[in-house]
C-alpha cells in the first residue's frame, strides 16, 4: 500500500501544480477547492509554504464519524470516498486532526486526499512523494531525495 507524504515542504515554491493536478486528474474539475492537497503560506508568502493533506490515519476519525459511510476506512490508512453517499454534514472536516478535509462551498462535498499519487509527478522539486508502506513510519529525512527536475541550458539571452 502506498501513501502520499510531504517530506520536503521546505523546498516548496508555491506553484500549486500538485493542487491543480489533483483537481484535474482525480476530480475532473478546475479549482483550488476540489483537491485533496492544499498549499498555503503561513502568514504571507515570506514565510514559505505548508501542505494540508491527509496523513492516512488508521483508524481514521473522519470515517468513524461519517454517518453515511461516504468515507470508509482504507486498509493501511486513509479513507475511501464516495461522494454519492455524502449528506454534506461536514462532520468529517471537523474531526480531522490535521485539517486536511476541505468542504467545497458550492457542492457542500468534502475533498480530501485518497492517496492515489497522481499529483506527485507534478511537483518540480520533490516536496511530495508517493511512497510504499515500508517508508510510512520512516522520518521525512529518510526518504530518498529525487533530483531537481529543472535542467541546465547553455548560452545567454535577454529575457
Amino acid at each position, binding site marked *: 500500500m502506498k501513501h502520499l507524504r510531504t517530506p520536503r515542504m521546505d523546498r516548496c*515554491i508555491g506553484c*500549486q501544480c500538485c493542487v491543480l493536478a489533483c483537481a484535474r486528474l482525480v476530480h475532473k474539475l478546475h*479549482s483550488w477547492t476540489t483537491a485533496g492537497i492544499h498549499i498555503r503560506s503561513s502568514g504571507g508568502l515570506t514565510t514559505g509554504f505548508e501542505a494540508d493533506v491527509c496523513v492516512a490515519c488508521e483508524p481514521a476519525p473522519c470515517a468513524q464519524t461519517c454517518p453515511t459511510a461516504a468515507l470508509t476506512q482504507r486498509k493501511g490508512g486513509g479513507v475511501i470516498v464516495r461522494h454519492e453517499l455524502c449528506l454534506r454534514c461536514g462532520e468529517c472536516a471537523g474531526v480531522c486532526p490535521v485539517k486536511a478535509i476541505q468542504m467545497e462551498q458550492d457542492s457542500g462535498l468534502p475533498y480530501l486526499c485518497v492517496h492515489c499519487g497522481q499529483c506527485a509527478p507534478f511537483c*518540480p522539486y520533490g516536496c511530495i512523494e508517493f511512497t510504499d508502506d515500508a517508508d510510512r513510519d520512516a522520518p521525512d529525512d529518510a526518504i530518498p531525495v529525487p533530483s531537481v527536475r529543472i535542467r541546465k541550458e547553455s548560452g545567454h539571452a535577454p529575457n
Partner: protein
Amino acid sequence: MPPIDIARPFSRILHYDATSGKARVEEFGLRAEHLGGSGLAAALYEASGLAAASPDAEEQPIIFAVGPLTGLFPLMSKCVCGFRSPYNGQWTESHAGGRLALALRFAGYDALVVTGRASELSCLIVGGHRVRAVPVPFLRGADVFRTGKYMRGMVKGFSGHRSTIRIGRAGENGVGFACINVDSFRHFGRLGSGAVLGGKNIKGIQVVGDSVSALPPGKSYPSLVRDIQLAVTTTSAMRKYHDLGTPENLEPLNKLHALPWRNLQKTSDSGISDMTGQRIAEDLLLRQSACAGCPVGCIHIALLREQFGDEHDYLYKQVPYDYEPLFSLGTMLHITDPERVLSLMDETEKTGLDCMSAGVALAWAAEAFEKGLVSEKETLVPLRFGEWEGFETALRHLAGRDNDFYRLLGQGALAAAACYGGDDFACVLGQEMAGYATGEVFFVAQTLGFRHSHLDNGGYSFDQTVTEKDAGAAVKYLLKDEHDRVMLTCMVACLFARKVYTTEKLQECLSSLGLEDMAGVLPEAAGAVRDLRWKLKMGTGFDPQKARIPKRFTEITTWKGGIDATYMEETRGLYSREILRMGGR
C-alpha cells in the same frame, strides 16, 4: 452554483462601481473574437466608450483580465491590467503574475472591472461568492507590506486560495509611475496602475478563488497538460529563469557594452564584477518562489540582513530581485554593492513605486545634479552616482510628491527636464528605459511599442542577432513578434514560455478544452486585438509620428560601435507608419 463552463462562448465579467458600492456580473461579447487578457481588456474599454473622457475621470475603469487558458496549462499564470495611464493619459496595459490570475479564474471571472471612486479609503474583497468593500482609513500612508498583512486578515479561511494586491503611498498620491504590488513579490509595474487604484480610493483588492469550473471529458486535455509540464520542467527550456534568473544577463550584457550605467553615460563598467547574477545567487539568494500555476520558480528572493543598532541588533528582509531593478536601481545609479541595491529595491517596494521608472528617473536627476541644472534646493538631498543614501531618501520624496521637483519627476524624467533642462540625457523611450542598450532597433521598439516595454517585442534580440542594417527587415520582425506576443498575452501566458507556446501549441490547448472555434481563428483574432489596442492607444493621445528618441541614445557605443542615427530614424519612420496603419489611421 453549478461548475462554470470552461468553454463558454462569452466572457464573464464582474463590474464593481466604487462610487455606489454596487456590483454586477455580465456576460460579455464573444471569446472567439476578443480572446482574453489583452483582447478582453481592450474590448471592454472600447465598449465603455470612454476614450474621449479625461484619463483621470472617475468613471474610467481599471480592468484586470485573464485568458481562456489561465490556470489550465503551466505558465498560463499572468493577469493583464488595462487602464488609462496617469503617466501619459493613454490606454495601456501592465502584466503581473503572483496568484492573481488563478484567483480571478477560480473566482469564476474572466475580468474584474472597477470604476468610480470610493467615498473613503477602502479595500475591495471579491470572489465567486462575495463582493464587499471594507473602509480602511487607518491604512492611509501605510506601506505595501503592512497593508498586505492587514488585508490577509480580512478574509479568513482562504490561505493559498486568494490573491492580495495593494498600493503604497505612491499610488495614493497619484505618482505617474506608482505600481500595484501583487502578492508581495510581483507587480503591475509600469505606467501608473497604482495611481489609478489610488484615484479610486482603493488601497487594495483581495480576490478569493472559491468557485469551481468543469473540465472537458476525455484524456486529450490532461494528457496535453502532462506533456507541457514535462517540456517545461524536464528539458532545458526554462532552466535559466529558475537558476540564476534574469540577473544572469548582467554580465553578458555588460561584456557586450549593452548594459546602461550612470544614466547611460556608459554601456560597460568593471564594477559589474561586484554584482553578477552568479555572485548575488551565491551570497544573497534565500530561495525561489513561483506564481500559482507555474512550476518554474523564477522569483528570486534575497535575504537582506541589516544592522539597526550599535550592538548585535539586526533585522532581516526578503527582497525579490530581477535583472531590471538591478539595472535601474544599481548600474543606472552606479551602485554596485548588491546589498545597497537591495535596500533601494526594498524602499521602492514599500512606497509602491515602479522600480524601473523610479531608478531611471533618479538617474536623470543625478546627472542633472552633477551638471548643476538642479541643486539640493530642488532635490532636498544630494543625488550623486554611487551614493545610495541620497537615492533612498529621494524615493520617499518621490512617493510623497514632497515638492515641485519630485512632483514633476514623478511624471517622468522628461516632465522634469521640461522645467529644469536636460532633456538630451533623459533616458526615456516612451517611458523610462528598460535595461537594454542593445542598439537602434530596441530604442525604436521601446519608444513606439504599445506598452513602451521591452516585452512588447524582441527588438533587443534583433539588435543582437542581425548584423545588417535593414530597417525594412527590422520592422517586419517587430510586427511579426508583436503579433505572436499579443496571442500569448490574450491567453494569458508568461512571456518566458513563448518558445513553448507556439501558435500551433496554443491552438492545440484551446481545442483540448472544447474551444475549437477560438483555436481556428486564433492568429486572425490576435491580429484584430493588436489593431484594436493601437486604435485605443492612438484614440487616447498617442501619435507615433511625434515620438522622439532623446539625444543620449545616439551618443552611446555598443559592441557594434556607435549608434547609426540614420538607420534608427529610418526604422522609427517605417515602424510608426505601420502603427498608424494597424490603428486604422
